[in-house]
């Protein structure tokens, strides 16, 4: 087996408001093969993101594997609407950072593109 960081495998990892009460996360891969390999690894699952962000299940409102874009997408409920006093990220744009370092374990024979 080999271990890679998610940021080495994904083309785009981002977060953004989806409406005023939700933040949505997109992890987009370059090609079908990498997308499938990461999905099959189980490293990015409902359970994995709940644990990473320390969230109860009820706050994960959507978790979608979106084949046409080679993307994994999930959405969480905010505790208070965007822009409330004290909200430190009114666009939800910097909440993706913990995803970058997720360890993804892949079979040795998975010939992935060099991320360079």
């Amino acid at each position, binding site marked *: 087996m080999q271990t890679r960081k998610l940021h080495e495998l994904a083309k*785009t990892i981002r977060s*953004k*408001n*989806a*409406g*005023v*009460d*939700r933040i*949505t996360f*997109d992890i*987009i891969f370059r090609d079908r093969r990498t997308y499938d390999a990461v999905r099959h690894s189980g490293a990015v699952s409902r359970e994995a993101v709940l644990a*990473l*962000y*320390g*969230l109860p299940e009820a706050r994960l*409102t*959507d978790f*979608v594997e*979106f084949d*046409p*874009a*080679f*993307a994994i*997408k999930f*959405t969480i*409920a905010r*505790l*208070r*609407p*965007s*822009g*409330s*006093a*004290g909200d*430190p*990220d009114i666009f939800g744009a*910097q*909440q993706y*950072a*913990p995803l970058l370092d997720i360890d993804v374990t892949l079979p040795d024979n998975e010939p992935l593109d060099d991320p360079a």
Partner: protein
Amino acid sequence: MIIGSAGDTGTNSRVDLYVGIIQELARKHNLPKFRVGSFYSEVSRDYLRAKIRAGDTIEGLEGRPALTEAELDATARVVGMAGVHPFMELLDRGADVIIGGRSSDSAIFAAAALHRGYDEGLSYYLGKVLECASFCAEPYGGKETVLGEIVDGGVHVTAMHPDQRCTVASVAGHAMYERSNPNYEFVAGGMLDMSRCHYEQLAEKTTRVTGPRFVPIGRVRVKLEGAAKVGERYIGMAAVRDPYTIANIDTVIGWARQQVRERFGETGYELHYTVYGRDGVMGPLEPVRTPAHELCIVVQGVAPTREMAEELCMTGTRQMFYARLPNVKGTAGSMAFVIDEVLPASPAYRWSVNHTVGVDDPMELFPTHMHDAGV
């Protein structure tokens, strides 16, 4: 030319401002006469109150409870999110330029295609894919131009920038942007179902999309947006380098909060501390538990008057300087300040209305106007 959500919020004053800008530019450049159509999208609280009292529930979105009269009373202003209806009416009446109040991004483009008689699914998809310009192209840029066409039962999207392409992945990927679910897009009047879309690379810079379907709703529901003023706001900043103080920063903040309570009581204001260098960006979502070697603390004081907000924020910021921890070596001040005062900020609002209202005629919320421009 069609512009939606004038000034972003789409309030009536922004629509008037934009119409004025168009008329002024037309005069300045001696443009031949043309017609500017506009519509408002502010919704009166009396209209919504009558709906509530009549039992026509104003339903909450995203898990919110139905709108109450109390929450409506607290709300300063409400706008309705227009679909294609007011745009199409103004196109029918011969508008050359349209300035819209608050509206769904996709409706701006969809209305133009529907006006020419194209299929609903393709028209709404055209709007959806074009709404953020080159966000449906790659590589990522800054909203460069893209061209959308409806051709032989499909939507063709082409990147105009010499270095960008619309690929199957980039076009499909855009459906995810700022949406909870990439398969469905809701507008006043129905839902665009993209779950059976088929994407095909037609040329180097062009992708063809087929299969989007529009599912009309029976009685139209219009999304409402509104905000309630919480209070006036000041902002303070403080920083800390002492490792012992950093390790006990919550105790320091607790001390400052206590001083505020003694001066202002328990309620009637909001006091927020954002601790940069620890969890300033993510708050409770932050998985990293080790703070940095220096912290910056931003304090927000929100209160009914500017005077109170200033004093509240000043107390909440300054008292961190005086916090006394039992084992701290430095005794002359617990904080570093870049400025020995607090700064006025915009008033604090909270998003109080994120709901939908049912309407018998979608135009009842969006009065239209026609204006002359040019000479």
